[in-house]
């Protein structure tokens, strides 16, 4: 299948916090419409990599190109689902208001009919219309995560980034989540992070792994692994369809056909 143009490219990116080196020589690219799984153990640097894509932090070395510009300038084209769903448990806000946050912009005071339509659509895709008027604080963990995915979708993003969306999620919510992601596949680029390094969803086109240490042995590098259909995956995973990640394989970062960046 012909791949779309490259929309995200990491070129030999290093990143360090003052206390620790995290990434070293990270190079990867993502094509438009791809479904990417980013795996790796806890604390390896997956969330850091997402923060770099979102322009919340800057690389120490190397460069990141997102939609032909810097992440900071292109991030309004991204829908983001953070890892944590447990905000202040007393925060007074309804589900609809949380989802509407996806339409917020720096200086807009009111929401238009288009905003309302996008919010309604996101609620429908995530099958949470019946929860719209309920307080966010009254929801279960799995329901909260689906609300946060709806919030990201209401921004009508070209790329959707989900940071461990299935953590502490019940099987039913997980099934509904992957059903919704299946509807997006092909049109919206999806980057999903998971700490389960063994299996990924069968929707996945490519797997990146933040795992092995780089030459300095202090920070980790990003490698691309092959996958094969899983026969031994738990049935409740990813709505029942999974691929096994072949960690002993390593694909060349430039293995797929390079097309012109957008």
């Amino acid at each position, binding site marked *: 299948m012909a791949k779309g143009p490259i929309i995200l490219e990491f070129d030999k990116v290093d990143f360090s916090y003052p206390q620790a080196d995290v990434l070293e020589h990270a190079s990867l690219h993502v094509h438009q419409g791809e479904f990417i799984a980013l795996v790796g153990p806890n604390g390896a640097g997956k969330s850091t990599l997402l923060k770099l894509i979102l322009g919340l932090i800057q690389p120490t070395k190397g460069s990141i190109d997102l939609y032909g510009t810097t992440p900071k300038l292109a*991030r309004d084209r991204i829908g983001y689902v*953070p890892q944590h769903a447990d905000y202040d448990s007393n925060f007074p*806000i309804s589900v609809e208001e949380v989802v509407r*946050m996806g339409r*917020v*912009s720096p200086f807009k005071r009111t929401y238009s009919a288009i905003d309302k339509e996008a919010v309604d659509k996101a609620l429908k895709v995530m099958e949470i219309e019946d929860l719209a008027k309920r307080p966010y604080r009254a929801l279960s963990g799995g329901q909260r995560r689906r609300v946060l995915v709806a919030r990201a979708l209401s921004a009508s993003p070209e790329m959707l980034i989900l940071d461990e969306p299935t953590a502490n999620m019940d099987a039913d919510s997980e099934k509904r989540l992957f059903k919704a992601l299946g509807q997006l596949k092909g049109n919206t680029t999806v980057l999903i992070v998971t700490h389960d390094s063994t299996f990924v969803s069968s929707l996945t086109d490519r797997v990146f792994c933040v795992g092995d240490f780089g030459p300095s042995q202090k920070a980790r590098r990003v490698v691309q692994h092959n996958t094969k259909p899983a026969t031994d995956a738990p049935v409740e995973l990813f709505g029942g369809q999974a691929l096994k990640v072949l960690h002993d394989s390593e694909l060349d970062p430039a293995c797929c056909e390079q097309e012109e960046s957008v």
Partner: protein
Amino acid sequence: MSSFIAALLNPSMPFVRNALLAGVLSSILFGVLGTVVTVKRIASLAGAISHAVLGGIGMALYLSASNIAPSFPPMVGAIIFAVIAALIIGVVSMRAKQREDTVINAIWAIGMSIGVLFMAKTAGYTDPSSYLFGNILLISSTDLILLAVLDVIVIVLVWLFYPQLEASSFDDEYAQVRGIATDVVFFIILTITAIAIVLLQTFVGIVMVIAMLTLPAGTANFHSRNMLTMMISSTIYAALFSLGGLFSGWSFDLPVGAMVVVFAGFVFLTFSLVGAMKKRGGKAS
């Protein structure tokens, strides 16, 4: 009741009317800013700023009494210290979160100590307790005008930037991804809170201003659907507590600031108790 109403209507006792007006005007700040302080969980930051204010008041009294800067208004000194404290706390909170607690406590203690030291060296008798506990009956017309101006500024800012305020309060990182300058929002909130604390401490005093920034909003939080209804409800609660405190303080010759906070605390604890009992009842069934 009748003696309080008679005092309100008595033309020779304008301070009682000023106190009533101050109660109403303060309620808007306590309600609106209190909601922001509560949902953003920055009550300890506000506490440190309110106590650092004593340093500025002490400095102003000293400079004024020693003729270094004659008639230096204590309020100006208080605002200088409050804003500096807010800026330091803001920078530390954003850039070195792990040190936030230490810095908050340091500013809290250092601000108060500077105030006490300046007052000790100020000629004549200066009683820190009048600043710590406030005196609503000493509120001037200028204080009322300043409170009204700040009320208008706060209401206009909230009206203009409610979606951004709601987003950054609920999920600061996500708001940043949506392009909102969350650092700027945070600094504006801290600076306005700092200035409001200076004006409000005249009413209930430095020690209790933080209680009034959290208790009415905390009470409203038990039943509010969103931040807007929380702001409105906590403004109403703050007005009721203020007027109740003023009336009872006048009637029984008790400190008004302390009465206001006792009312606010009693209602908050009652709501907490009822809420806990409901939760327990729900679990049991």
